[in-house]
């Protein structure tokens, strides 16, 4: 059975759904963070897949941007999570409501 582009897109959709569900139902900030990464990489996968479909390098270029932004986001996000954990080691995402309106 040949692995077509559709398979990649299906995989991408599945990964994205896993990430989204994880983000919505888990309460641990670190896990939620990993779910966000999962969603980002799922979209990266579809970028690459479409790049193949249309034979267009722009899709792969976009992936580079996403990777760079994700890396930066990891740096900032992880530092925030670590700093939060230092202050309140047992905090869940629902406990962190300092920005409540």
């Amino acid at each position, binding site marked *: 059975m040949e692995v077509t582009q559709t398979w990649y897109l299906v995989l991408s959709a599945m990964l994205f759904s896993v990430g*989204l569900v994880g*983000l*919505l139902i888990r*309460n641990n*900030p670190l896990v*939620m963070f990993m779910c966000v990464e999962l969603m980002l990489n799922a979209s990266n996968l579809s970028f690459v897949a479409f790049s193949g479909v249309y034979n267009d390098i722009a899709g792969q270029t976009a992936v580079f941007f996403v990777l760079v932004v994700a890396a930066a986001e990891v740096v900032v996000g992880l530092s925030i999570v670590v700093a939060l954990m230092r202050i309140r080691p047992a905090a869940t*995402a*629902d406990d*962190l*409501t*300092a*920005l*409540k*309106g």
Partner: protein
Amino acid sequence: MVEAAWLIPTLPLAGFIFLVLFGRKLGEPGAGWVATLASAGAFVATLVTFGGLLSVEGPERFHVQTLFTWIQSGSFSVDAGLLIDPLSITMSLFITGVGTLIHLYSIGYMHGDAGFARFFAYLNLFITSMLILVLGDNLLLTFLGWEGVGACSYLLISFWFTDPANATAGKKAFVTNRVGDFGFMLAMFVIFSELSSIRYTDIITRSGEIGTTAATVAVALFLLAAAGKSAQLPLFVWLPDAMAGPTPVSALIHAATMVTSGVFLLTRLNPVLAQAETWSLGLVAWVGALTALFAATIAVAQTDIKRVLAYSTVSQLGYLFLAVGVGGYVAAIFHMVTHAFFKALLFLGSGSVIHGLNDEQDMRRMGGLYKLMPVTGFTFIVGWLAIAGVPPFAGFWSKDEILLYAWNADGIGGKGLWAVGLVTALLTAFYMTRQVILTFFGRSRFHDVTAPELDEALENIAAANRQAVIDAEAARDKAVVAAEKASGDLVKRNEALDKAKSKVEAATVDVARSDDADEGHAKLVKALDRATQAVTKASDALVKANNAVDAAKELVVEANAAVEQAQRDADNSGNAINVTVPHYVTAVTAAPDVAEVEQHLPASYRERKEYHPHESPWTMTVPLIILAAAAALGGVLNLPFNHDLHFLGNWLAPSLFGHEAELTASAGTKWLLAVVAITVGGVAIAAAFNLYVKGRGKPASVEKRILADAWKVDQSYASFFGGPGRALFNLASAFDRKVVDGAVRVSASAVNIAGRAMKSTQPGFVRSYAWLVALGTAAVLVWFLGRLLA
């Protein structure tokens, strides 16, 4: 040579910065010398530039030196540039020249003042601002200088700011000037809207593009600006109060330079004036003429030596406006220069007098100072001759020129202007003669008793009399008490006698009853004897008590008489002491005799007796001598006899572009007008001489109360702005608070209310945000799919 121009405003600016940083360390007199050198350097730079202009032909004497671009905004661009032409260099020459002399003078005048370095820093800043004003190559730069001199004027009027009166005078000057500045700004907008430029070069070369209406409006607004800065009706009220500042400031800023900037501005803008309707020029001339007359009448009745000069300055500035209004620009600048010489001289002379008299400014307390202060006196007299229009002193030539142009003016009531100018000249000669006589001649009244001192002495005497009455009354009360006591004694003695008598009677009865042989008989007889003796004693005591009562009554009578006498003395003392402070003019011959009350006079009187008026130090007299020479010979600048002697006129011609009015009067008329002016001046001097030296006539008949109060203009302003004016201000303030601030507050609270409403959508739960994003994305996706399938 002309390239040296940038140094002219820069040197005093450097002096200012240096003095701000190091002035305190430098102290006295170092700071004064630094400032004087900075100003003198600017004078030299001006001379060099002047030489540069002289070396080229007339029409080429117009040079713009651009230093840098100051403001660049779209098509609007303003350079910091200097316009070097005969007009600006003439102004710079006398600003730096007279300014340097006044710096030198101030070293002596400000001797011992705590703010010595601060004073000189301000003076240098003032010179800088004034030079920027006259040298600026566009209206905005002139405006910068305009505001700069205003700020310096404020700082220097309230230089001794610990006295609230000085601080108030400074504020008054500043606020009154703001009214004029408002006119300047609006006029600048008018010019910009017409020409899209505020450069003088554009205004001059393209003045034809300004519409007649716009030019008229601009002239009216510039007149408002000039009336504020040059103290014309109705904005003159700040200048007399500005005399609260140190005298060199009065001379430099409020007589010689800053107040002439209004006239400079109008002269600089002569192409715009030429474009405006004739009536606006008439307005300028009539404002000037009426101010000249109005201020001259007030000067007649002033008694403060500096206030006379202040009103005189207002009056002479009116002359300058009159000259500008009738197109006599050269005459205006000529009189401005000569006025700078002689008014600076007069102010510095009055400063020297004030300095020598231990800060006395009241002319009623001067007199006879010529012998004590010969240099000041002599130079002051030169100034007087110059301002009174006595030929061949400078003032005569310049004033005559203005009167001639007024006579010559067409269509704006020239003859009327001339008549007003002539009456002003008469009053000027009169009040200046009065001032010279009261200050330098007649009897020295400095040591005379003053009215308040005399009042105090009389009050002391009255108090002593009242004390005498109180003492006499106390003595009388004591005598009365003694008399009462003596009367009481008398009653007691009477009773004692009665008792003794009744005892005798009883004893006699006892003796009669008893038997002779009885043993008790002898005893009873003895008792009777004793009783009889007691009666005798009591009678004696009674007689004595009677005498005592008589004596006490006599004492009471005497004490009563003493009280009456003391009361009479007290009542009479006011009439008995025949010492009054005579009217200062009648005091010319005799001092008030104070022998009767001398020991009751307050300490201030004795202290003044110890003080002797003296001539001022050389740093003060040298500027006086130089200015006196300039005031005497200044007429040479512009002699009317033939065209080649018209030095100033020929020199200024390139700055006037032929807008100078043409004289049509014949030579005969000119001579006639000159003779009339001289005669009028002579009559005024003779009248003042008669009144104040010969003592013929009553000075009170000219020194009216209403004149001394300056026609009550100040009071009227105060009562208007305090009454109906205040209601208006309150209304404006209420509008600001309710409507303007209200609009701001309503929009702020609208945002606040909206924020409260949205608050519930922000619970702070990250996952609920994530849900919202996911649902939103899903909705967008569904919508896209719907469109795709449809």
